[in-house]
């Protein structure tokens, strides 16, 4: 059997015919199915919307908590830095006072006065 004979043999076997009413009804049947699918999908979409809202709310809560947690250590570190600066300033003043005490022959009276 060559290709042409095969093609001829395949084409000689038509698909079974359906009654005319079938072709008249099929498109409207599809339209009904589309309408049914739309109504079936509607509650599903609402359910998805609710899930999305809940997810968004949960994400918001998590982000807020994360921000708050992040700010607490930041405040502590700022306080420590401030104390450090304060300490450095006091140490510098003490240094100056001691220097004056050592160099000044007027004695202990300088110890009681604040350096300027």
């Amino acid at each position, binding site marked *: *059997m060559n*290709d042409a004979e*095969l*093609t001829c*043999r*395949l*084409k*000689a*076997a*038509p*698909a*079974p015919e*359906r009654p005319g009413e079938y*072709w008249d009804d*099929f*498109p*409207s*049947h*599809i*339209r009904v*199915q*589309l*309408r049914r*699918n739309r109504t079936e999908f509607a509650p599903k979409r609402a359910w998805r919307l609710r899930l999305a809202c809940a997810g968004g709310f949960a994400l918001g809560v998590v982000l807020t908590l994360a921000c708050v947690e992040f700010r607490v250590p930041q405040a502590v570190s700022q306080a420590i830095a401030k104390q450090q600066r304060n300490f450095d300033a006091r140490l510098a003043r003490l240094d100056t006072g001691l220097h004056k005490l050592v160099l000044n022959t007027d004695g202990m009276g300088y110890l009681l006065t604040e350096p300027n």
Partner: protein
Amino acid sequence: MADADAELVAESQRGDPAAFEELVRRHQRMIHSLTFRMSGSLADAEDLAQETFLRAWDQIGSFHGGAKFSTWLYRVAVNACLNWRAGESRRFHLHARAAEELTPQTHETSSAEKQHEVQTALLKLPAKQRAAIVLTIYDGMNHAEAAHVLGCSETTVSWRVFAAKRKLKRLLAAGGTAQRTPRVEPQSPAENRPPISHE
């Protein structure tokens, strides 16, 4: 989109079911023919045709008019057929129905016999080879058009057509020989089961 369906497609994309119904009316025979060749059963062909049009409605927004609407619809239908995986029980019913629908009765003409023989041979092909044969021989597409519908290269289509023809020649030649021998009716539906191949 220089297509006779262009206006109906545009209206369908805007959500008009009446326009889509008209598209279904225009293409229903073509799609039923394709799904029948692919499934071998009128009932399954109907299910597949319905699935094709429902999928087409869902996906019509993705049709941008690069090809003809009928080509795009073919692609949807072929994908529906290729993705159609029948379970064993469904397969059993398919063959029972196919045998019921296609087995010629004694008073019917020999064309019904030939139709049965050809359809049985087609069902023995792997699904992708069957699709290639249906598109190129029954729907008259060239290999480039068939490649577009099947989403593969032209070379792949050529190979599938070649392999399918080789197998069909063997099956139909064997069938022709068997035709001359007396037909033995199977005792149970399982014996009447031609294997369907899903590649």
